[in-house]
């Protein structure tokens, strides 16, 4: 084998293994927004797992290297074990997501994990032979020789890359990719529409981890040795740079990044002649170029060479247009029969109808209140935001929650939705104590909130924002990921049709394929309400939905609320605009200084002087 041939083989194997790892990290960070700065540890875990499972017993080495759990398993088994170990480790690291922290803080935590892992492996020489590392790790193709073995390895890596790509696309594209991107764009909003963010993060980190393990095993099977210097924290940076250069969240962008960053630059500087007086010069130069490249792209082209595309927009466009082009057209040119449209819209849905039937059975049981809040307390560092509030929402009513600023309305709403934990008190929803039920589960039960400040999934289109909120979608299940389009395609079309119906109702069709981050403030608020309705709630919690809306939009939103109530939906509405409250609400709850001040119909409250005074004085 000539020198150049050998060099080409090395380059191709590095390229393939690096690509697999970069795809995994891109799925975690680029697509799902998990800043896994400890990713290289998962690559290392795969490499070590492969090594100890193929090297045979530690004692068989004549004592020159020590490690745990020596075995001589078949190579295929060892590689799969490596992927599995890294997947488990990735999931464990994913548990750090339980504490909802700012992403840069998470990144720092991961960085610490990465460096700690290195120090532990170095400190414990019996684990995987400390800083000296493992050597003589067998090549899976050891029976072949020379050039045949080398090119055989390249072919094997190539095939595995293709397989990994097929698996990857199941997660990074289509409805599942859309779900992950929604979580990345706004975690709170994802929770509010019933997505189990923690489980998703752990799943993503397990999948990304398995890629890392595969990459590590393939790399170490080729080079035959593995030590802590091969998986320093800086290697994660190399992967991140490849992703940033290529295009975050774009699988083909990552391919471009992997060609440019490590193979051309880190390997490229190896061609420079070494300087005898400073042997560190050349490798350091490689890292400096890497750093400059990262910074350059962050400044001048943060989306990368091949920016992330809208994952489902075009596909949905063809599906959605096919089904609904007619409706959208008539509505745009047609009349404003919105009330009638809502009615037909909701009753045409099989699922909420079933849900509403349940609600009615609940009512038949004599349970008139869908929500009962008792003696709720919440302090914020000495401030009693909510101080013993008790109120209830009648089934099928619109209940207003009013009070002066700082009365604790939003906090109360936050507690009811599960976003804020109460210091004391109970929340009963539909006859069930949900005080300790996590937010996303409450949303799945039908208790859904909107936010006072808009929380949109910015990189998704308006339509995708709605489609992603659909509850219990097949495409989000394990079966959906395995089964693919055949399993969820039909349902996806139905959900899309429903979303198109909602868009028509709110007269937002023109913005169907607009990215949500480009919408105006008022449009974002409408989107927020539509998205909540998409989850098919039984009780909708609206936090000042009309704030910042023009009178016309306010009226349109009011129409929609009234129509939804006709269908049996209950609404709890925090609102300052008394005109709107007067128009919409059957019952009004007045809060002052964290306490229930009065409850009754608006006409009733109007006659009570103390209410008037409290409201105006506040």
């Amino acid at each position, binding site marked *: 084998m000539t020198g150049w041939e050998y060099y080409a083989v090395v380059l191709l194997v590095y390229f393939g293994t690096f690509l697999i790892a970069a795809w995994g990290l891109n799925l975690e*960070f680029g697509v799902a927004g998990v*800043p896994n700065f400890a990713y290289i540890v998962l690559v290392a875990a795969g490499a070590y797992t492969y090594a100890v499972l193929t090297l045979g017993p530690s004692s068989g080495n004549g004592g020159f290297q020590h490690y745990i759990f020596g075995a001589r398993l078949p190579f295929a088994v060892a590689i799969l074990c490596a992927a599995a170990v890294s997947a488990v480790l990735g999931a464990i690291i994913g*548990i*750090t997501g339980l*504490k*909802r*922290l*700012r*992403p*840069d*803080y998470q*990144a*720092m*935590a991961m*960085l*610490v*994990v990465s*460096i*700690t892992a290195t*120090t*532990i492996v*170095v*400190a*414990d020489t019996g684990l995987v032979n400390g800083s000296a590392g493992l050597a003589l790790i067998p090549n899976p193709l050891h029976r072949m020789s020379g050039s045949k073995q080398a090119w055989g390895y390249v072919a094997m890596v190539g095939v595995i890359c293709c397989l990994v790509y097929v698996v990857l696309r199941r997660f990074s594209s289509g409805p599942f990719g859309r779900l992950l991107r929604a979580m990345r764009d*706004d*975690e*709170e909003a994802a929770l509010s529409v019933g997505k189990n963010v923690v489980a998703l993060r752990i799943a993503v980190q397990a999948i990304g981890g398995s890629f890392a393990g595969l990459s590590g095993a393939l790399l170490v099977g080729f080079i035959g040795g593995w030590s802590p210097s091969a998986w320093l924290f*800086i290697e994660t*940076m190399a992967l*991140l*740079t490849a992703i*940033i250069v290529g295009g975050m969240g774009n699988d083909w962008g990552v391919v471009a990044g992997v060609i440019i960053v490590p193979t051309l630059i880190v390997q490229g500087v190896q061609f420079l002649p070494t300087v005898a*007086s*400073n*042997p*560190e*010069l050349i490798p*350091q*130069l490689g*890292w*400096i170029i*890497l*750093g*400059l490249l*990262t*910074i350059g792209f*962050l*400044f001048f082209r*943060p989306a990368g060479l091949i920016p992330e595309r809208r994952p489902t927009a075009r596909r949905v466009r063809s599906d959605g247009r096919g089904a609904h082009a007619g409706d959208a057209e008539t509505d745009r040119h047609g009349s404003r029969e919105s009330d009638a449209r809502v009615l037909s819209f909701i009753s045409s849905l099989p699922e909420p109808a079933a849900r509403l039937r349940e609600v009615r059975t609940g009512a038949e049981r004599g349970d008139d209140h869908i929500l009962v809040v008792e003696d709720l307390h919440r302090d*914020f*560092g000495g401030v009693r935001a909510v101080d013993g509030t008790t109120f209830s929402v009648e089934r099928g009513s619109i209940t207003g929650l009013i009070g002066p600023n700082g009365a604790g309305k939003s906090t109360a709403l936050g507690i009811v939705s599960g976003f804020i934990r109460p210091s004391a008190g109970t929340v009963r929803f539909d006859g069930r104590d949900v005080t300790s039920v996590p937010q996303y589960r409450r949303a799945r039960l039908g208790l859904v909130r909107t936010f006072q400040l808009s*929380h949109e999934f910015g990189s998704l289109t308006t339509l995708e924002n709605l489609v992603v909120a659909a509850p219990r979608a097949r495409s989000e299940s394990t079966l959906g990921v395995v089964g693919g389009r055949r399993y969820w395609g039909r349902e996806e079309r139905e959900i899309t049709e429903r979303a198109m119906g909602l868009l028509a109702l709110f007269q937002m069709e023109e913005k169907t394929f607009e990215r949500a981050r480009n919408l105006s403030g008022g449009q974002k608020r409408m989107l927020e309400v539509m998205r909540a309705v998409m989850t098919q709630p039984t009780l909708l919690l609206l936090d000042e939905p009309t704030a910042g809306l023009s009178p016309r939009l306010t009226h349109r939103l009011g129409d929609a609320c009234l129509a939804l109530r006709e269908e049996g939906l209950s609404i709890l509405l925090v609102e300052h605009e008394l005109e709107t409250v007067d128009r919409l609400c059957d019952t009004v709850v007045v809060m002052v200084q964290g306490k229930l001040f009065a409850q009754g119909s608006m006409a009733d409250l109007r006659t009570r002087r103390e209410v008037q005074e409290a409201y105006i004085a506040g």
Partner: protein
Amino acid sequence: MGVVVQTIGFGIAAGAVISLGAVGFTVQFGISNVLNITYGAFMTLSAYLGYALLNRGLDVWLALLLVAVAMALISVLFNRVFLGPLQRRGAGFVSVVIGTVAAGIILQGVIVILVGPGAITYGAQFGTTVSALGFTFTVAQLIIIGMTLALMLGLHLLLTRTRIGRAMRATSTNRTVARACGIRTERIIDLTWLLTGFLCGAAGVALAVTTVTFDFSLGSIFLIYMIAAAVLGGIAQPYGAMIGGIVVGVASQLGAAYWSPAYQDVVAFTILIIVLLIRPRGLFAAAGVTRRNLSAT
């Protein structure tokens, strides 16, 4: 017993340096809202700058002061020409962290290319030893402990008792509102980077004094100690970072003495990971500022 006391003494001395660096790190993060990983590389740079001054025959403590002043200016410049513009271009939190990591890598690479990868030393700058209550400290250690206490107290008073300190805390909580209230937030941010750069420089030279030999990787491992101290104490809490620094210093020295020197780093890092998992806002976190700074959105 004597060994325990002495080990704790070592820990306090080590902790003082950690505290010094951690206070700068935590205030920088708390007020300017940037998680600056370059901080570690800046400490390395400080140590090498101190070395250059020492070689010109300067007294080590004078060198420390000069380096601290130089680093204060470099730090302001770093924020003005790099991080500020990056944030204004809409880079997210993680992008900014990646930017600071990249900057650290570049800086470290430049140092290696200019000075070489070999280890260097300040020589023995410890002074005589002083013993009291079973503790034995070198004069250098006492100076560092005293300096740390003084800087900490000064910073605490600045933040809590002065108009500028109030403006800094306001800027930290909500920059836009602070600006709307007539606070010149650019100046406040400059001042923050000036002060924390000073602390970074002082800590870098102090670290080089207490370490026998060091190389280009000095700051990158030490950064984790500082992060541990800052996280333990609660971000943006100068006193918290100080107590955190002492706790981390003592714990890692005890780990080294009673377990194995190889585990010195592991002990410190494990503390950090446990705190991050259980109480990520730190042991002494104040409710308001930190919650806003660290919550997911």
